[in-house]
């Protein structure tokens, strides 16, 4: 029992002595990965909800509908090939976002307005 723990959310699974997939060669080529974006309702932006595999764009759309909108979660879906996305690092210490870090004057709270000035 010593190498077993219950972290698996749908019931206990072993967390040691289990391979993680490195060095496994799949016996068939895998369908490309698509990222899925759903517009929850009119007036909202599309939001990233996850990914899936599909052979082509139409199949990606149909799978996205079945996987991500079984309960009226969306009125519109975008699917984008994952390898077509260019991303920054999400790390907030990334110098990419440094230019906006020190410009407090871009925020309304930077400015003192007397309390007796209405609607501002």
């Amino acid at each position, binding site marked *: 029992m010593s190498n077993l723990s219950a972290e698996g959310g749908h019931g206990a699974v072993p967390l040691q002595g289990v391979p993680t997939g490195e060095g496994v060669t799949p016996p068939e080529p895998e369908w490309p990965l698509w990222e899925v974006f759903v517009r929850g309702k009119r007036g909202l932006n599309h939001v990233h909800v996850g990914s899936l595999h599909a052979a082509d764009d139409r199949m990606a759309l149909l799978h996205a509908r079945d996987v991500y909108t*079984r309960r009226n979660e969306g009125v519109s879906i975008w699917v984008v090939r994952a390898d077509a996305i260019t991303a920054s690092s999400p790390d907030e210490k990334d110098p990419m976002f440094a230019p906006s870090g020190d410009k407090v004057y871009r925020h309304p709270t930077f400015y003192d307005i007397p309390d007796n000035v209405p609607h501002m």
Partner: protein
Amino acid sequence: MTLTETARGPAPDAELERHFEATIARNDRIEPRDWMPEGYRKTLVRQIAQHAHSEIIGMQPEGNWITRAPSLRRKAILLAKVQDEAGHGLYLYSAAETLGVSRLELTELLLAGRQKYSSIFNYPTLSYADVGTIGWLVDGAAICNQVPLCRTSYGPYGRAMIRVCKEESFHQRQGYELLATMMRGTDEQRAMVQESVDRFWWPALMMFGPPDADSPNTAQSMAWGIKRNTNDELRQKFVDMSVPQAEALGVTFPDPELRWNEERGHHDFGQPDWEEFMEGVKGNGPCNAQRMAHRRRAHEDGAWVREAATAYAAKQRKATA
């Protein structure tokens, strides 16, 4: 600290590790492209992949009853539920893939028996009451495990759990309602429900894993914020939740030690048979061989569909090129 180390500054990895630890300490989420310790990544791959496998294998015990549902209403509900389990598996494979493994690789590891799935799905479903009991107790236990996982430190896993938890609520309620309907029926139906609950109670308690003293990974997983509660905490919560539900239903749990402890403010209860649990994990549970054979057959039977779709996509690309 030696002078040389000061002069050179800390190694780059140490800096990254400090940043990672600080993110965890702030209760912030780790996202896919962040640096993370290899142990953290591997623990997550194992946990998420095998959680996904559990959802996929978990379609079988109930899928077994779809063609024999007692009414069109029950059939539609069960179809929707089993479809959800497939969806949960896919959300989780999607989360696992953000860690640099592919779904096909993980599927191979499952089919080869090198990655496991929750032992709860190795128990047979012998009557339609089992569909209700699985919804009530098995999905109820899963909810206890999965609600805290919504706040897990790895962003994609937490987001998948939020989607899963919303749907599990339907699973648990349809199960309880099914059992309540049977309890209003004949003596024979009531006996079916009690018999089913008797079979699933202990396996449901096993879903939380061995007692804390025998779960050496828990401390590290909690330090990393992957896991939020210990096995025993979750098991206690589940027992306390289930007792009044059983009373309302009119069934009992097969545990002579189960009683309210005024002092602790919790129920005392007996320990499941951990030997039986370990055998299930090792692959010697009642239905292990059947579940794996079915999964392999489904994968092989689907090969021509995958090949045809790939060929069609290639042909379309050529036509538009």
